[in-house]
């Protein structure tokens, strides 16, 4: 992806201005919410519940623009749940609800005026298992822009997106072939290309490399480092070395037993520069987890 093309996309929908999907008369006043400079998301005292079960509690953190932020922690610590709050994917789960405040460029993402579908257009997601549509490579990329509507030529969008995902040279001669014929690593890069085709400014990645071999993983990691120039990336990973290799900041979550409910609830233990988290963390729980002394 060339920087010019992405630059145009950013200008078309500049951050820190009221996004098009927020209707007039939004309850959130501009003066009440001053977006922090450089923060894409501001998470304030956020808890997520599935019915009565509190999956993650009292999270406070800022996600910085054009950085890669990694969420690490043991299974069941709420890191994927937290990731899904960023594009309201938890809305699709019955009984899921959120308390606290989540600001995206200073706008309350959970305001009733906000359209969750439009949110997901700005905040794309890549999942653990590559999930291309059973369509051609070309149609996979064109799917989103077709629905969203675009003035740009579809061929240009497909080429730009595939180039951005480092896949263009491998597939340019077989764009009409089924996406299901690609290797796992290529399929995942196709999914990344598909997510970027609608010009989002955030990419959420939920263990994007856990189904891939080390070579394909290395390609995705390289790609993430290239893409952060144009996107803000939040990644959930079980692979601490991956978090250490690619991310600028790391958030460590863990699950602790709530004695009042006898349930394990996820919480954010420590959030800092990745170099600090992996060389000299402050909290002993972080230290124990990353050095394999878990418990």
């Amino acid at each position, binding site marked *: 992806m060339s920087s010019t093309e992405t630059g145009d996309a950013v200008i078309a929908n500049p951050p820190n201005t009221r996004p098009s999907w927020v209707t007039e008369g939004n309850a959130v006043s501009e003066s009440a919410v001053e977006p922090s400079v450089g923060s894409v998301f501001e998470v304030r005292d956020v808890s997520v519940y599935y019915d009565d079960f509190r999956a993650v509690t009292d999270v406070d953190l800022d996600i910085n623009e054009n950085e890669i932020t990694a969420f690490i922690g043991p299974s069941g610590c709420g890191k994927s749940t937290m990731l899904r709050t960023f594009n309201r994917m938890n809305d699709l789960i019955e009984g899921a609800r959120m308390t606290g405040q989540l600001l995206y460029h200073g706008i309350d993402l959970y305001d009733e005026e906000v359209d969750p579908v439009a949110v997901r257009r700005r905040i794309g997601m890549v999942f653990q298992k590559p999930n291309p549509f059973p369509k051609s490579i070309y149609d996979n990329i064109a799917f989103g822009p077709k629905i969203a509507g675009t003035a740009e030529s579809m061929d240009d969008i497909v080429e730009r997106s595939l180039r951005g995902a480092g896949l263009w040279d491998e597939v340019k001669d077989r764009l009409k072939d089924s996406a299901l014929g690609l290797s796992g690593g290529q399929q995942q890069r196709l999914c990344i290309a598909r997510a970027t085709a609608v010009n989002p400014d955030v990419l959420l990645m939920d263990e994007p490399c856990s189904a891939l071999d080390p070579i394909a993983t290395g390609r995705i990691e390289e790609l993430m480092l290239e893409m952060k120039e144009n996107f803000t990336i939040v990644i959930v990973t079980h692979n*601490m070395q991956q978090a250490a290799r690619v991310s600028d900041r790391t958030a460590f979550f863990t699950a602790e037993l709530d004695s009042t409910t006898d349930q394990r609830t996820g919480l954010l233990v420590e959030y800092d520069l990745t170099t600090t988290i992996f*060389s000299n963390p402050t909290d002993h729980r972080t230290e124990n987890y990353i050095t394999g*002394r878990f418990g």
Partner: protein
Amino acid sequence: MTEILRSNFHDDLDAMRLEVVRMCALVTEMIPRATDAFLNNDLAAAQRLIKDDDILDAVSINLDTMCTEMLALQQPLATDLREIVAAIRLNPEIERSGDLVVNIAKATRRMFGTEYEPHIRGLIVKMSQEAQRMFRLASEAYDRRDVALGAALDDIDDRLDEYANDLVEAVLNDHKAHERDPQTSVQMALIGRFYERVGDHAVNIGEWVRFIVEGWRPEDVGAARVAAQAEEE
């Protein structure tokens, strides 16, 4: 209760720590032997000590290999990473200390037949005892992760520095009084320098203890000053 998930790796880390302590113990034990050989003109004892330095070199190489393998294979993090980085930095400190002690033993040959004034002998004995004490304390600070003791070594070292100054003065007076060969006097002053350098290495070991526990290095202070100055400009 903490469950240890990487027990093999942590066993390796324990073995690595043991090698550092073992190196410190070898140097601590070599110091009085070198002093006795030197003051007693005991060439055979000096020879044995020079040969025994090979053991220190072998442990040093082993420690180096252990650290490199753990970095390559285990992706150590946080305290584990600092432990290994510290061991890699401590290794040459201790190995070099052994070389300084060997230099004292080698001086037995160079100075063979020299009779030392009681005052000079006394100062050399004191320096030897102090250097040995400092190395033992540095080893204890490392073994117990005792940051306070590690930091105190810098001040404890003052006494050894004073002895070194006293020795230079005594050697100069001795030189004038007995019209010694300049080379002999220089060699005698150098002996004091060797003990003093051993003390400096013990101070460095103490500083690395603080790095292991807190991630802090003494050079951080100067580096912060440079960064602050660059920001002002």
